[in-house]
């Protein structure tokens, strides 16, 4: 394994230990309230008693945005590899990538004209 990855792993573990220990310290040092009514642990809803669960149906536009995101994000992964070998491949790589991005831009125009990205 590459040595830098070991350092990265250690770094992540140290930050996880720190974050967890803050939560545990807060648990130990936190002053618990003496008296709890049945409203103490309810969720906040402008002072009213909460009405039903919050896990509701949502507008499908969120789904469409996620779908378009996947499309462009996969493209970005290809772009990274392309960026690294660009000097070696020369004009061929440029033309190929312009075609690739061009097709994606067509898809973008289609999504835009269909109103997939319009939020009203």
């Amino acid at each position, binding site marked *: 394994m590459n040595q830098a990855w070991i350092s*990265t792993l250690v770094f992540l573990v140290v930050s996880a230990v720190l974050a967890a220990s*803050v939560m545990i310290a807060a648990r130990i040092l*936190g002053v618990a309230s003496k008296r709890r009514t049945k409203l103490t642990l309810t969720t906040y809803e402008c002072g009213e008693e909460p009405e039903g669960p919050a896990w509701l149906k949502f507008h499908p536009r969120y789904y469409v945005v996620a779908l378009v995101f996947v499309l462009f994000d996969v493209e970005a992964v290809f772009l990274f590899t392309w960026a690294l070998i660009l000097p070696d491949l020369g004009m061929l790589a440029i033309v190929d990538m312009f075609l690739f991005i061009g097709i994606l831009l067509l898809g973008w125009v289609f999504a835009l004209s269909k109103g997939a990205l*319009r939020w009203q």
Partner: protein
Amino acid sequence: MNPWLRGLIYAVVVINVFLTITAWSIWFERKFSGRMQSRLGPTFYGPMGLLQPVVDGIKLIQKEFLIPINADRLLFVIAPPLTVVLALGTAAVVPFGADIIAADLDIGVLYLLALGSLTIIPVWMSGWSSNNKYAMLGAMRAVAQGVSYEIPLVLASLVPVILAGSMSLSDIVRFQIKHGWFAFWPPGPGFFAFLFFLPASLAEANRIPFDIPEAESELIAGVSTEYTGMGFGLLYLAEYLHTLVISAVASVLFFGGWDGPFAPGLHWMVLKTLGLFAGIFWVRWSLVRFRSDQLMSICWRYLVPGGLILVMSAGLWVHFHRGSG
């Protein structure tokens, strides 16, 4: 150096420095915003209110951590520490000097973007697990905004990668030392990439003017509505940490990192990072929040196609300037 030891030493030092800077940046922000609005800001604790972060910390750690009765307990508890881990973890690959780097990954930029985009998950976890309508709305908007601004962010950070031909952050800085900072030198792609990078990364960190998930005037406190005590404290801390990391990354990618005359590299790196950090505060207190639909249309109508054009122009620049020479 032994990689285990190197990781440990750098982690302890970098995390401590970052947390200290973050704590006092909150003081700085309150003082700064106070002055911008003809107020005094914190004045009570210590000279000029300098002990305010300490007092805030003690207050937050003493508060009771309440878990709502309908909440998804596990997700509710692990979400705030997870945001902090992801915000701190990105600092592992940021070079602070010629050899001052915890882990010089050869795919540093990809690692940064991966960890940065993962922050959507704890934000979603905190919003969903609260079982609160405001938190749920905030979380939905956070995810939509996070995934949308991910695209311009990736495209903008691709430009330095294309120009330098490497994904390692220290290689990118070395290239800039030789050829000039990307914000200025290839006149066009670099500077515009910075202009794209900054708003996109602010949107990922949920800072004003992109703090739709937390919009306190519409959604009470968005995803952090149900959080009390240290849970809230960590969510808040993660936002500032993320902003600090963004400033560091932006100064590495676009402003030559540790490059600078007279002083040692570390000084320049710190100076650039804190300069950008203060600039972000300035933006925050100058602009108002965007509306949710405005935010999405800015991203999808202008930033995404603009980012693609930037990537293509950077590719052309590399081909005609470096490929020939």
